[in-house]
């Protein structure tokens, strides 16, 4: 799987080309909006993929961190008069701390037990966001002020497209770096055999916790972008369905493939738009398409296709 990154430069170049070329096919600002959403979700998915695809630890509550990031940029400027960019950083740090506190006890769990524990965490965040109405506006959500960078107001779908695209590339490069490093190899080792990993001196609990924190920060930044981009946020951002959507993007794109994150996010953001022609059957059609993908490309889109195109690569 890490073979996708054999050369450090090519994937990065390909990605930059995709970001730059894609707008040539856009016919409206709405297309820019979809593109921006793809990159924002892909950012969260890259982080989750480090946790799930590489370290092999499932999280069904990652939208919780999306929620923390989103509400940080909503609450920070509104109640504390903090700049939005600073609120984003605060959210990221907060997510890291929460991931540390939550991760320490629950990452001892394995498999289904870990899945249920993380699910509980995600639900918890969504409930807090819904019930603390004084701060969050409750189920109706709250408005989010525009992002100001160096006195310049960031708004408009096209601007956000470029910002999200650039941020995704940064996130992608960091993840690719990690995969090709001692930490990355240790994480993949943990995925296959914790016993052997420990026997080689890898502190498994600590590695898991570290990557959980990293993936939480990815999700938090993506959540902040989502809130700043939309200008309005509701507790749904941290909801269970969002978490499932993130997991589906990881699995569909390809576990353990950094590129798969973009493909998975693109499919699950773009398809629902394309399927609106089916009206009432939109969701059913989406489900069907995902099932077909998983049946025929069971390792996920990117790993399956790269395997098909090149001899042994798995």
């Amino acid at each position: 799987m890490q073979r996708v990154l054999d050369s450090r430069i090519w994937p990065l170049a390909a990605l930059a080309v995709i970001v730059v070329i894609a707008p040539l096919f856009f016919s409206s600002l709405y297309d820019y909006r979809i593109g921006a959403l793809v990159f924002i979700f892909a950012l969260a998915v890259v982080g989750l993929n480090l946790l799930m695809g590489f370290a092999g630890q499932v999280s069904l509550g990652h939208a919780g961190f999306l929620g923390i990031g989103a509400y940080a940029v909503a609450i920070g400027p509104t109640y504390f008069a903090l700049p939005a960019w600073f609120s984003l950083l605060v959210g990221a740090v907060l997510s890291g701390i929460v991931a540390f506190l939550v991760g320490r006890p629950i990452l001892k769990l394995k498999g289904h037990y870990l899945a249920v524990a993380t699910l509980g965490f995600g639900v918890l965040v969504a409930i807090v966001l819904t019930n603390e109405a004084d701060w969050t506006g409750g189920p109706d959500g709250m408005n989010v002020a525009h992002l100001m960078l160096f006195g310049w107001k960031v708004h408009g779908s096209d601007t956000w497209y470029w910002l999200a695209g650039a941020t995704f590339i940064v996130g992608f490069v960091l993840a690719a770096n990690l995969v090709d490093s001692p930490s990355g190899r240790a994480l993949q080792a943990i995925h296959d055999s914790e016993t052997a990993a420990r026997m080689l001196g890898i502190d498994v609990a600590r590695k898991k916790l570290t990557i959980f924190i990293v993936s939480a920060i990815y999700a938090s930044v993506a959540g902040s972008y989502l809130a700043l981009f939309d200008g309005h946020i509701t507790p749904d951002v941290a909801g269970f369905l969002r978490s499932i959507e993130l997991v589906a993007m990881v699995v569909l794109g390809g576990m353990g493939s950094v590129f798969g994150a973009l493909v998975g996010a693109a499919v699950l953001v773009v398809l629902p738009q394309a399927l609106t022609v089916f009206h009432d059957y939109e969701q059913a059609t989406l489900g069907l398409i995902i099932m077909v993908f998983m049946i025929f490309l069971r390792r996920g889109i990117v790993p399956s296709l790269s395997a098909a195109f090149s001899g042994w690569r798995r």
Partner: protein
Amino acid sequence: MTILSASQLAISFGGVRAVDGVSLAVERGEVYSIIGPNGSGKTTLFNLISGIYVPTTGTIRLAGENVTGLVPEQLARRGLSRTFQNLQIFFRMSVLENVMVGRHRHEKTGIFADLLHWPSVARQNRQTREAAMAALARVGLAEAAERPAAALPYGALKRLEIARALASEPVLLLLDEPAAGCNPVETQELDRVIRSLTNEGITVVLVEHDMRLVMNISDRVHVLASGRTLAHGTPLEVRSDPAVIEAYLGTHGSEEAARAIG
């Protein structure tokens, strides 16, 4: 110099004393084999020594230091490495990457350096790769380096585990049935590899059923039966010990006994 010593080790699982009062002392640079009929506690003893199980009673010393109760990763950092009877290969990784993980305890980087791909990380990767290639070459797997581990045959995976353990530059190497499932040629190759290790001062503790291999390369042999020490001594002493012969004949049928008596 005694590199590994255990005194009065015991562990019970639900009332069954899997290992019961076993003591041993392994000298630096020797090949020390642990044999015994199936279920005699050989692998359990390995799991105690390598920190996977904590003994109910008894102490373990590594290079003179009391290491009883230390977890595997702590023991690994003190130079203990092992292979597994049931393979513990990183099947998602390539052959080379498996061995590169073995370098972990020698790698010095942090999560931030790794995320940012500091120049030190690139240098580290290069060193790790070279050391891993050298370890692969020692077990004759250099040509398979870029193949996925999952594509290797069973015998080669056994050697891959040895290469991975070697990459960690162990002081003490525990090999759990390295010859199981290997053909005679592969077993001979194994014999050669183990000898080359001891020439470098690496101490090898071996659990093995292949008596020809055991009797060939061991400096000393420790025989377990029902979790207790039955006999220990040089291969010659052990195979002429009446208690050993009886244990093999009595509990395990004639085939293994015939081989044990040689």
